[in-house]
């Protein structure tokens, strides 16, 4: 088959844009959160400084091979997820490697980084890491369910698994967005979205003062820097999926920036308003509120 080698620089470009956007947007959201607490909050470029500092630390330790590879998996997961999706609708330049697979690939590739991270954290031998991982897995297992159903519902609605085609079907005005054509599925998916954003009330798995930040408790220096980089890319990539599926996708970078920002803000908004759930509470929450919505969305589509 012919491979268009230009896709490689384009891919780098995509990653570059998203990293920067991710750092800035993250800090902005942080500042907005701080404003809710009547603080000024961090400087807007703070995340850059943190990453540079962490890359600049002179020592590091390793607990073993998997520990070493954990952050690599994590970042690969984020970058891969981003690159397996057509980020900008209608743009060949930013469709990257979406020829390799469709929506399903994206959905399952989400777990690539999670799995690697979990293994790396596991090898550190720290019980808090393991506790954090188990909490996260348990919570996500139920949070994913309404999302999976919503995706199924949307796929049924548009009779395709191709992200591009789903976005294409939503073009031509806001009222064509899935948000309005299939509101139940979107409601279910947005509840699931909250569960996957590592923000309150669903952040018990990193509970900083209980199990000092859970899985990454042993990570530092450049490992941590990689993970911070991923923290910039991964949420954006994930939100891009939601955006594409439910909110009409993005035809240009600015549109993407705006939509992602508001989606991110949604989770931050909920996060500053609500306290933290215990694991079984959040499982029950999803089971009671989100899952029925998901079932309904499958049934009515």
């Amino acid at each position, binding site marked *: 088959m012919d491979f268009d080698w230009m896709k490689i620089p384009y891919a780098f470009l995509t990653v570059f844009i998203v990293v920067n956007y991710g750092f800035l947007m993250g800090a902005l959201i942080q500042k907005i959160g*701080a404003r809710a*607490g*009547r*603080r*000024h*909050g*961090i*400087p807007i470029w*703070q995340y850059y*400084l*943190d990453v*540079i*500092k962490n890359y*600049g*630390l*002179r*020592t*590091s*330790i390793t607990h073993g091979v998997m520990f070493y590879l954990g952050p690599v998996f994590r970042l690969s997961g984020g970058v891969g997820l981003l690159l397996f999706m057509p980020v900008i609708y209608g743009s060949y330049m930013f469709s990257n490697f979406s020829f390799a697979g469709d929506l399903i690939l994206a959905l399952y590739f989400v777990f690539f980084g999670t799995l690697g991270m979990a293994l790396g954290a596991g090898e550190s031998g720290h019980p808090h890491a393991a506790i954090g991982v188990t909490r996260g897995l348990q919570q996500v297992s139920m949070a994913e369910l309404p999302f999976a159903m919503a995706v199924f519902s949307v796929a049924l609605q548009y009779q395709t698994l191709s992200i591009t085609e789903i976005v294409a079907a939503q073009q031509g005005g806001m009222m064509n967005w899935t948000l309005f054509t299939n509101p139940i599925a979107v409601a279910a998916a947005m509840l699931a979205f909250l569960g996957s954003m590592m923000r309150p009330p669903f952040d018990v798995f990193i509970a*900083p*003062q209980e199990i*000092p*930040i859970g899985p990454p*408790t*042993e*990570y*530092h*220096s450049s490992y*941590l820097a990689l993970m911070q980089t991923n923290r910039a890319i991964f949420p954006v990539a994930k939100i891009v999926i939601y955006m594409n599926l439910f909110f009409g996708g993005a035809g240009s970078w600015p549109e993407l920036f705006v939509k992602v920002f508001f989606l991110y803000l949604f989770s931050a908004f909920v996060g500053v308003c609500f306290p933290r759930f215990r694991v079984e509470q959040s499982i029950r929450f999803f089971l009671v509120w989100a899952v029925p919505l998901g079932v309904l969305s499958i049934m009515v589509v």
Partner: protein
Amino acid sequence: MTTKPELMKRMVKGPDGLEFEVDPLRDYYCEAPPTVMPGAYIQIVEDFFNWARSKSLWILGFGTGCGAIEMRPLMTPRFDAYRFGVAWRPTPRQANLFIISGYLSTKTLKRAIRAYEQMQNPKYVIGLGSCTINGGMYWDSYNTIKKLDEYLPVDLYIAGCMPRPEALLAGFEEMKKIIRTGKAEGANQYAENFAWYKANQKRVIHDWDMPDYNW
């Protein structure tokens, strides 16, 4: 030296019937001593890193003494230390700045040493309050230490009993200057004078139940 049973050497029988000795201190802990870590080879890169380090001070959230009470207001809207790139991290692995907040009992000293050694180079120590300087009101206490820099390489003292949060903020700014000028090499000092520090530490800590350097 150690009397803790869990650290004593013991004979263990494996599932295949093989008997062998387990020495916890050797088998469960890394024995390597700390080394002096030079900065980046190109000075400008090192300066760049120092600048970033000074802008991103991650404090280990470990309140060793009564002074810790003065650190909490820093997170509040009134002082809002986050503005200055100061943040708290729950784990020493990710922290760069260790604030010894007041007196250190020998018991706490042991924990403080562990936590300090688990931080990554470069790492900084700020002594908070008089107790860390000369023992303060505990100067003749039987179980607190008097001069912190005999045990850990202190970069900066913030005097007072207690120093107010404003003083702390000022201290952070001072710390940033030290870092930016490349003089905050406490970790390397510690590695250089490792034997001396250890001797001091072991002099006051009688139940030394850990390896010499806690990686």
